[in-house]
């Protein structure tokens, strides 16, 4: 018994070595990183669908080179991202890494990318501001906007249109939570609003009961900057506690990952204003085509009713890679030099608007202010309220003034009229 097991193991190892050896000459090795464990698991799974959709459309063959994919699972912590990226880079020897998904992972990968100049890193959808603004890395590209860009326009909308003058916030206590809130707060405070209290919860919090009790009841609305399982847990317990305040959603709070969760809890989100890189029911032809491609690629029970921003983000990053690789005929032999030059020049005609890169290799694109609506059959989606084009990383203000605001953190930005 033991003998057979050993022989079997030995043969499969040998077979693995052989196939790898035979195929390595021309195949392009791509590493894919996403949060396939922990609080953001369902987000990671949808990001994988976005990646696979782009790859399927290319037939897993880019400029004549077959693509071999290596998957690294992370859990939203920077340590897990480092572990996963080391595996795909140092063990599997990939040429290009697509990922990660979560904010603090992105910062860790930016630092790691500096030690691996032979590999090109294309961010998946992580949205911490620091990743590309502070000390950026030459071989790290980001084709999605950061959390602050995703917050653009929301503050102004809720202050002027909804009439919310005072707001308390609850958000995840890490880089993306800070960045996403900064985008909302700059806009909201400059319009004249006041943030009375900021509550921070650790990523992966399960029991929000006491936080919910601590929410002030003398404010016009509550801003929720949670995501994934935390968002679902919060809404469930919020409903159990009988909460009925006006809500404002952070970008991943009202994403498809939460809007299609099981149970009644999500219903408290109907009518909630939010902002981010897409609006689910936007009538743009390019967007509608992407939604249809996504729906056709998987059976309804294996996907969300419509792609989440995670799927869209990874779809765009993968397409940017494909576009640049085709421009250089799949040739990476010059140490990726031509490929990276082509990446910088990519103008991506993405389903959620045109995307270009700035000097830090950070995306400039369109942002969408949305509202949650019931589209029938118990399904929720976001409706477009306002689209803002050409949002750059400094949100349209000068770099000096933007630097004065500071790197997003628990206390930054200060709530005042910034311009």
């Amino acid at each position, binding site marked *: 018994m033991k003998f057979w097991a050993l022989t079997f193991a030995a043969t499969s190892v040998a077979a693995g070595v052989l196939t790898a050896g035979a195929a390595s000459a021309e195949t392009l090795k791509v590493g894919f990183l996403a949060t*396939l*464990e*922990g*609080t953001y*698991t*369902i987000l*990671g*799974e949808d990001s994988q669908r976005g990646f696979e959709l782009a790859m399927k459309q290319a037939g897993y063959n880019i400029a004549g080179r077959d693509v071999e994919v290596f998957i690294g699972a992370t*859990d939203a912590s920077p340590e897990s991202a480092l572990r996963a990226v080391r595996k795909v880079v140092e063990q599997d020897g990939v040429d290009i890494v697509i990922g990660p998904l979560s904010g603090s992972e992105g910062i860790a990968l930016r630092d790691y990318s500096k030690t691996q100049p032979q590999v090109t890193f294309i961010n998946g959808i992580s949205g911490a501001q620091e990743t590309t603004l502070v000390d950026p890395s030459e071989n790290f590209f980001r084709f999605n906007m950061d959390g602050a860009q995703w917050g653009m326009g929301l503050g102004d909308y809720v202050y002027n249109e909804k009439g919310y003058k005072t707001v308390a916030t609850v958000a995840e*206590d890490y880089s993306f939570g800070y960045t996403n809130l900064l985008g909302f707060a700059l806009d909201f405070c400059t319009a004249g609003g006041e943030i009375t209290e900021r*509550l*921070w*919860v*650790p990523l992966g*919090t*399960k*029991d929000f*009961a*006491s*936080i919910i*009790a*601590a929410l002030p009841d003398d404010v016009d609305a509550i801003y929720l900057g949670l995501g*994934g*399982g935390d968002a*679902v*847990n919060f809404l*469930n*317990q919020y*409903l*159990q*506690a*009988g909460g009925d305040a006006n809500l404002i959603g952070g970008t991943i709070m009202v994403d498809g990952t939460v809007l299609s*969760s*099981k*149970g*009644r*809890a999500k219903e408290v989100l109907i009518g909630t204003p939010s902002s981010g890189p897409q609006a689910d029911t936007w009538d743009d032809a390019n967007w509608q085509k992407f939604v249809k491609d996504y729906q056709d690629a998987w059976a309804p029970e294996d996907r969300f009713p419509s792609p989440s921003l995670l799927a869209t983000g990874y779809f765009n990053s993968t397409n940017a890679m494909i576009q640049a690789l085709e421009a250089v005929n799949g040739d990476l032999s010059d140490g990726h030099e031509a490929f990276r030059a082509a990446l910088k020049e990519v103008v991506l005609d993405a389903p959620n608007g045109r995307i270009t890169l700035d000097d830090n290799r950070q995306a400039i694109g369109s942002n969408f202010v949305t509202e949650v609506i019931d589209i029938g059959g118990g399904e929720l989606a976001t409706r477009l309220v306002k689209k803002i084009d050409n949002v750059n990383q400094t949100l349209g203000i000068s770099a000096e003034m933007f630097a004065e605001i500071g790197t997003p953190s628990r206390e930054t930005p200060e709530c005042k009229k910034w311009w």
Partner: protein
Amino acid sequence: MKRYMNRHPLWSLIFVAAGFVLIWLIFAIWPPELIDLIGKKKVFVNALFNGITLGGLYFLVASGFTLIFGLMRNVNLAHGSLYLLGGYIGYEVSDLTGSWVLAFPVAFIAVGLVGMLLQVLVFRHLDGQDLQQTLITIGISIVVADVLLWIWGGDFYQILAPDFLSGPVETFIQTGVKRSSGEPIFLKYPAVRLAILFAATVIGVGMWLILNRTRIGMYVRAGVDDREMLAASGVRVQLIFVCVFGFGAGLAGLAGVVGGTFQSIAPGEDMRFLLSSLVVVIVGGMGSIPGAALGAVLVGLAEQFGSVYMPTYSVVLTFLIMVLVLAFRPKGLMGRG
């Protein structure tokens, strides 16, 4: 009680005084100076209640753990996996039948059977070999975690509470008065959490009664004190072991349904609850049921008060309690010295 008061008059006085202060804090309307000092009464009372209900959940998991350890000296590090399995089973049952109540007995029995199998197939062969037990149960927990991930995926599952338990109930505790009309405002509290607290209390008291008032309880207590002597007096020790193991595992499964109702079930929860059970029994004293109850409430309170009053350090608080207990009472609060 009386003996304790005679032996430690100062401590007794402090405990009684603290009890009165707590009762006053819960029922009195807070003066403005106090609100300036520590915030609103609503927040305080909620954190207190949430800590106790969370403690109820921790107690359900940890009591099985401590029972198994106390009787058999088995450190079952796969206990968290039993919790997670119970949660998934409970979800499937309530999803299929639409009955939340039915999920509890099914999860209890199914996970209890798994526990019995574990005892018969694994622990019986490893009697007294602590290191092997530890390593093998860690191995089992890793395998089970992967199997569960394979079957149920990485999604978040929530077991829906029935309609009569969803939403809040108004309690008789007054938190303030309306500024406009002067009407009293009463504390609203989630009904489902009250139900869970009630159930945990019933189970805890029931366990205490069985252990202290019945013949089986007597066997179990005798087994905790001296296994060999109990076996020598003609009691079928192995049968008791299997039953206690099954009961302890069943409680973990039951707790999985509870946890799935007011939190959620997902990969990784097994390790979280194993860790909290370890902390609870270390604080409370290995093998002691009242100790598990006390430890669970302390840990629950630390988490909830920490999350409101010192969010940055809330994680540290739990372990700080453990450090203090280990420093001053290395056997745990209720452990036998």
